């Protein structure tokens, strides 16, 4: 059995942790550092921070947040949003992050993936993919936090980013995101059949069973969770307990 990583995803706008539906209609949840610390102490395996408006304004505002949380949080952290160059990526890693996530800039200029991968190693590069279903077995890639369509097919894009040196895929279903209706299992299944690099499933977790289906039926390597955690509908402790009971292999954590 593969080991599944349990990841908290924090979408950030300006100084605030926010949460939307279909990546839109954003509402403020609280301060990112409070939630990041809470998830670290609860036993999250990793944290993902996404600046949701960075592409719109052309810069990432997460620097100060990462720098401050890195003094107290000692698990891997991924930072995405508005990263356009190797220099941007190096700057983010210097602040204490371990990986960067790229989406919009990589769609506009795919060689950004190979440049970052060559400079920092594929283990430091997550390619974030926002996918929207267009027919029963086709998905289209979106950018700018689900705002812009690209006409690019999911399978074509996955094949390209793997060959360019992506280390992991953060796969967000635009259709399911924020709906609490479960993951898009066909999307995850299609992605994990297309590529051998790890797939982090994101978007739609409403209950524990959704996680179990994403892993057992669809082949997810990791699960990114947001509003289910932010609004205390589940805690890492209960997710861990249910994972062990349902024989999903996770990190052993002795607190």
């Amino acid at each position, binding site marked *: *059995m*593969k*080991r599944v*990583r349990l990841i908290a995803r924090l979408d950030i706008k300006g100084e605030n942790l926010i949460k939307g539906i279909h990546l839109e209609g954003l509402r403020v949840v609280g301060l990112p550092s409070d939630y990041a610390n809470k998830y*670290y102490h609860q*036993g999250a*395996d990793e944290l993902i921070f996404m600046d949701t408006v960075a592409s719109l304004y052309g810069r990432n505002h997460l620097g100060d947040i990462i720098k401050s949380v*890195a*003094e*107290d949080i*000692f*698990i*891997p952290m991924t930072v995405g949003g508005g990263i356009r160059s190797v220099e941007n990526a190096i700057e983010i*890693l*210097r*602040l*204490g992050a*371990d990986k960067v996530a790229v989406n919009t800039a990589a769609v506009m200029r795919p060689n950004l993936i190979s440049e970052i991968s060559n400079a*920092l*190693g*594929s*283990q*430091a590069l997550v390619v974030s993919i926002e996918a929207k279903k267009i027919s029963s077995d086709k998905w289209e890639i979106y950018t700018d936090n689900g705002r812009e369509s690209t006409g690019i097919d999911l399978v074509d894009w996955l094949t390209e980013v793997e060959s360019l040196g992506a*280390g*992991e895929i953060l796969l967000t279903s635009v259709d399911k995101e924020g709906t609490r209706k479960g993951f898009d299992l066909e999307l995850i299944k299609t992605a994990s059949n297309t590529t*051998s*690099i*790890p797939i982090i499933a994101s978007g739609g977790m409403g209950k524990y069973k959704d996680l179990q289906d994403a892993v057992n039926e669809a082949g997810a390597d990791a699960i990114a969770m947001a509003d289910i955690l932010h609004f205390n509908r589940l805690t890492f402790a209960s997710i861990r307990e249910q994972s062990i009971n349902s024989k999903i*292999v996770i*990190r*052993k*954590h*002795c*607190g």
Partner: protein
Amino acid sequence: MDNKVVIIDYGIGNILSVKQGFQKIDANVIVSSNIKIIETATHIVLPGVGAYENGMNALNQLNLTDAVIKIANKGVPLLGICLGMQMLLDESDEFGVTKGLGLIPGRVENFPLSILDHEPIKVPQINWHELVPSQSKNNWNNSLLKNHKQNDSVYFVHSFVANPSDEKHKLAEYICGGNRITAVIEKDNIWGCQFHPEKSGATGLNILKNFTSL
């Protein structure tokens, strides 16, 4: 005498996280590439992420290779992390053979890809794994891993594996796809962790704390 932990800065790896890890456990820690400062350390840390050849080249260019070997041979506790751990060995097969520091006999070799159980192996191996005692060790008393609970996991990111030639220099391993993968090596005053203690939560910070008390 108070402890003085010096993290060797040779431009490779996420030094800030390692420094913050030591600060969190209230260690007196500084980051330096200056030989004179490194020589005053009570504890030396060699961090590192990335390719073996780049790491050794960077150390050579700063004239730090001989300095590190000399200080280690004087008995000052030395901790290598990730690439820094692999550099403690004689040489590596990563992209051609590169000579290492030669402080612990052994080689760095390809990650084994033969699956001996049902766990699929992905390289780079990016995951949390539980540490188990190596076959030559009965316990971790008085070692870098004292107080470490055997079921506690630590965070690994690597594509190559350190293989000490003498089994007694292995302190801990983890199991991946049924293979035993070296996790911690030790020889006298020299220790190396394949995993990242600075990214392994409270468990990892405890290992940093153990190091400062060695």
